[in-house]
């Protein structure tokens, strides 16, 4: 006996076919809406983050699950996974970074245009993990500044989603002047980046 087809028969009621982002705080009147430029830019940026996956090991496999339909990172405006650093906003470092790989991670980071963010996924990228040895970099924050760390070995896709939402939060709230501030320049200088 054939298995009854049940999924496509019922028409599901679609409440909102297009997801709308919550508007920032502002002043609404008839026919106009006034808010801060900072908030608008933040809203646009945080909902269109282009990730650059730098996957070197098992965390990269979890990332594949994250990008696929089940966890679906595209819901957060990041379906455009880019492999060209110039167009990307978020560097996602996933997996063990050997010391020989470190200059390459740094080069990729330098090739990204400002504003740029970095997410370290998993124990290895965050701290070297179990690879406490002469060949492995003990956390990518030794070579580039990191915004969000996702713990786990490897983290579940939900954990990465949580980290990604934290990145969105940072992106949305970031001041437009932050990247020109002395504090940011000092941070960059501490990594030897001009």
């Amino acid at each position, binding site marked *: 006996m054939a298995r009854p087809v049940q999924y496509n028969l019922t028409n599901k009621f679609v409440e909102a076919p297009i997801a709308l982002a919550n508007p920032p705080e502002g002043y609404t009147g008839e026919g106009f809406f006034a808010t801060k430029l900072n908030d608008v830019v933040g809203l646009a940026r945080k909902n269109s983050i282009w990730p650059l996956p730098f996957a070197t090991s098992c965390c990269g496999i979890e990332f594949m699950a994250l990008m696929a339909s089940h966890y679906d990172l595209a819901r957060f405006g990041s379906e455009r996974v880019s492999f060209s650093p110039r167009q990307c906003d978020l560097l996602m470092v996933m997996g063990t970074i050997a*010391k*020989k790989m470190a200059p390459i991670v740094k080069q990729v980071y330098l090739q990204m245009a400002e504003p740029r963010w970095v997410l370290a996924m998993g124990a290895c990228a965050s701290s070297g993990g179990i690879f*406490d*040895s*002469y060949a492995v970099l*003990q956390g990518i924050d030794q070579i580039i500044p990191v915004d969000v760390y996702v713990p786990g070995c490897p983290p579940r896709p939900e954990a990465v989603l949580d980290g990604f939402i934290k990145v969105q939060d940072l992106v949305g709230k970031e001041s437009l002047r932050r990247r020109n501030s002395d504090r940011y320049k000092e941070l960059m200088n501490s990594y030897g980046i001009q």
Partner: protein
Amino acid sequence: MALTNEIIRQHVTEKFGEEIYDWSELYAMLTFTSHKDLNLKVLQFLFDDPILQFRFLTDLCAVHYPEKKNEELAVVYHLHNLVDNIRIRYKVFTDVNNPGVFSATALYASANWMERETYDFYGVNFIGHPNLVRILNADEMDYFPMRKEYPLEEQTRVDKDDEMFGRD
């Protein structure tokens, strides 16, 4: 007549006599040692001899024995006779302060990368190697990490509290 460990031993002893020593058979694999200056002569003989025909270098590696004075580093050659399907192990020992051993690259092309790896991790100086530079580790590394004189854990790490690992 198939080649056996006894025939190999007899053949090598006929040629080199007392210069080959420390004969043993671990897991049915014939193992012997010679002085490091003889290594190319022994390998050439094992390669050329019509009965022995050890023409494939399976593996080349080093071992560090810190307790053996003046012969701390062992260089181990694993040779394979593809005709009779027999393997042997041949060792030479060298001083860790003067780790010069003649390179086998002229005889076995496969020795090239394996000698580079052995140099990379143990610092064995293969005399006559065409390009003896690091192969796996970062080029700027200034020590030989597999020698037992170095601590196992990465020393740049500052967040590891010895107390939490039950160490003094």
